[in-house]
């Protein structure tokens, strides 16, 4: 059986979550590996959420927010952008492939972009294989 990765998505309510809904409304088909948690803003995402996701066995983490400059809360995603860039470095330092964390700015009107990103990222994680570096073995 081929490897089906588990990917955790965290999406902001106003742009990426709505964009993901639009992908559905327009019936775009994409792989079902990403499970999305909704938060109000990408700035709500604490790096610990990402570490925890990898501990829980996520093979990849996809973060989605509004385009920089278009944040529903004015500047939230700018904080998120800086913090997530650092998080990526820490993950790399911990020995994880940086490609397992992806941050994308997807607006409410970009349903097709959401579908494309999920498709691409799922392929990418499939190529990287299962993540075991941070996973807590039961």
């Amino acid at each position, binding site marked *: 059986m081929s490897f089906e990765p588990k990917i955790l998505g965290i999406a902001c309510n106003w742009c990426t979550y709505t964009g993901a809904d639009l992908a559905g409304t327009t019936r775009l088909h994409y792989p*079902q590996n990403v499970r999305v948690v909704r938060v109000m803003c990408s700035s709500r995402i604490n790096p610990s959420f990402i570490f925890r996701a990898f501990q829980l066995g996520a093979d990849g983490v996809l973060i989605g927010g509004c385009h920089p400059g278009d944040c529903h809360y004015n500047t939230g995603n700018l*904080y998120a952008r800086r913090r997530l860039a650092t998080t990526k470095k820490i993950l790399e330092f911990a020995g994880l492939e940086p490609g397992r964390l992806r941050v994308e700015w997807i607006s409410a009107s970009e349903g097709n972009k959401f579908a494309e990103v999920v498709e691409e990222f799922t392929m990418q994680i499939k190529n990287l294989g299962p993540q075991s570096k941070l996973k807590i073995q039961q």
Partner: protein
Amino acid sequence: MSRIGVFVCHCGLNIAKTVRVSELAEFAATLPDVVVAKDYKFMCSTPGQEMIQHDIKQYNLDRVIVTACSPLMHEKTFRKVIENAGLNQYLLTIVNIREQVSWVTTDIEEGTAKSKALLNGAVYRARLLAPLTSRVIDVNPDVMVIGAGIAGIQAALELANTGKKVYLVEKNSTIGGHMAQFDKTFPTLDCSACILTPKMDNVLQHKNITMLTYCEVSGVKGYVGNFDITIKQKARYVDHSKCNACLACTEKCPGKGVSEWDEALVKRKSIYIPFPQAVPQKPIIDRESCTFFKKGKCRLCEKVCEQKAIDFEQQDTFIDVKVGAIIVATGFDLMDTKPLVQYGYGKYPGVYNSLEVERLFNSAGPTSGKVTMRDGKEPQSIAILHCIGSRDKNHHEHCSRVCCMYSLKFAHLFKEKTSADVYQLYIDMRAAGKGYEEFYNRLSEENVKFIRGKGARVTESTEEPGRLIVEAEDTITSKFMKIPVDMVVLSPAIVPRAESKDIGRLLNLSTDKQGFFMERHPKLAPLSTMSEGIFIAGVCQGPKDIPDTVAQALGAAAEALTIVVNDKMELEATTAMVNPASCCGCQNCVRVCPYGAPGFNYEKRVSEINEALCKGCGLCASVCPSSAIIARHFTNEQVLAEMEGLMEF
């Protein structure tokens, strides 16, 4: 221990086609703390809602999970359902298995498996939810309308007639918008001015409307019910409180500027009103072309003004207003067709865009309604080219909706006013409005030549200088054509106003690919936006004709009224709070909050959050090093539990 009820919706076959819904309900029943799990065809229908309420009572439920469509669709509906059954509305969790599962897969195995994972996450989260109390706030009863074209005017009048005070903000020195530039309106060919100017006058006279012309919104703070707006009044260099609209100044002025109102076809004075029926009838000075501002002397207008209203020292001023709701009606621009060099706009004087032609027809326009070209001659043959830059993947994918009809109107008016041959070059004739198909049929009998094919290129004739050649393929006969004409009219794509991007940023409005403002839901909330209390009307939301624009304006007025008609309203309870026992006093939260909600209590050495200012983004919670800030409804524990549930399957 909580007592959770899970309700799985089939949504007809929308969900049930690619998710095994009964299997999902059976699976739910095996999850911790779930005491009842059911599936039903339409959970949002009356029987579905009653089933949830019945089960809350029968099983003594303290959490409800509805596994259905997106929370953005029906979270509010189901919150009300459980609240009416005596549960706190925040104890509801929605699992989105329609937009994010069943509609994006064709594989029922995949769909069912993902739904199970999402549902498991929801159960983990639901167990940690806490009841919350909505905040009740006072509502400011006034409304601001941005843009005073037909949409803004209609919305403002409607609200003002209900007794509400309206601030109508317009960036130009007159209200009226594009509709005031037109001569006739399709398909009835009634006179645009006759139906619009009385409304403009109503605005001027209405005691409940504060008309703010030559103004721009420069700052927006606050939230639904309590917006604090800063409006920039651009310097007019004429004190309108003194001016008595005698317009002696405009007669004497030697300066010449380009008339924006007449689409740059003629010059106007430097102190001017845009057109004779402008509202207000009071002039402004165009700094760029004014002789005094350019050369330091002249002041003729000042000399003739008996009211002493001319004020060359005038500066931009700022006005602060408070409103409860906002209607955005910023309208449209025509796409700039100069970059489409194949059509020769800006190169050949015989090529016009549609707004220029509207002005040529207008009796108050640069030619007093006579169809004469830039060289002063009457055209003997005219080609109208549809879909310039619209329905074109290289430029704008959307159909601009009104061009087919106004092009037919042009053809009719050309026939009425000249003896020219008129060609219509179209891709498809779109005549979907009331009376439109009839209008098309009427034009077919008016000796207009219809060619089904998009105009490909406009060049100058080598044999007859000044004459233009339109090249196109007639797709019915598959014949390549070269049509010699005197005049070419382009019907360019309709695009959002250039400034609408800034307005969108100020108000946090999302835009679609073309830059039009996005509605909250295309069908069920077409006038609402993602920003509560802000509504959209007219072409700023997408190209549309005057009847649709007016209908939207009336709708937006009604929507705004539902907010400002009440003295108080409920706001989401999902704000942040500080646990003073674990706050380390670092003030990270104070520094990052875009709304200034957290403040530092120097006496107690802890941060405190002003809930009235908090919008619930959760940024402070994620920068708090001691986890002292709790983002209600999205706490660390709740998010982490949901993640754990999602990753288990």
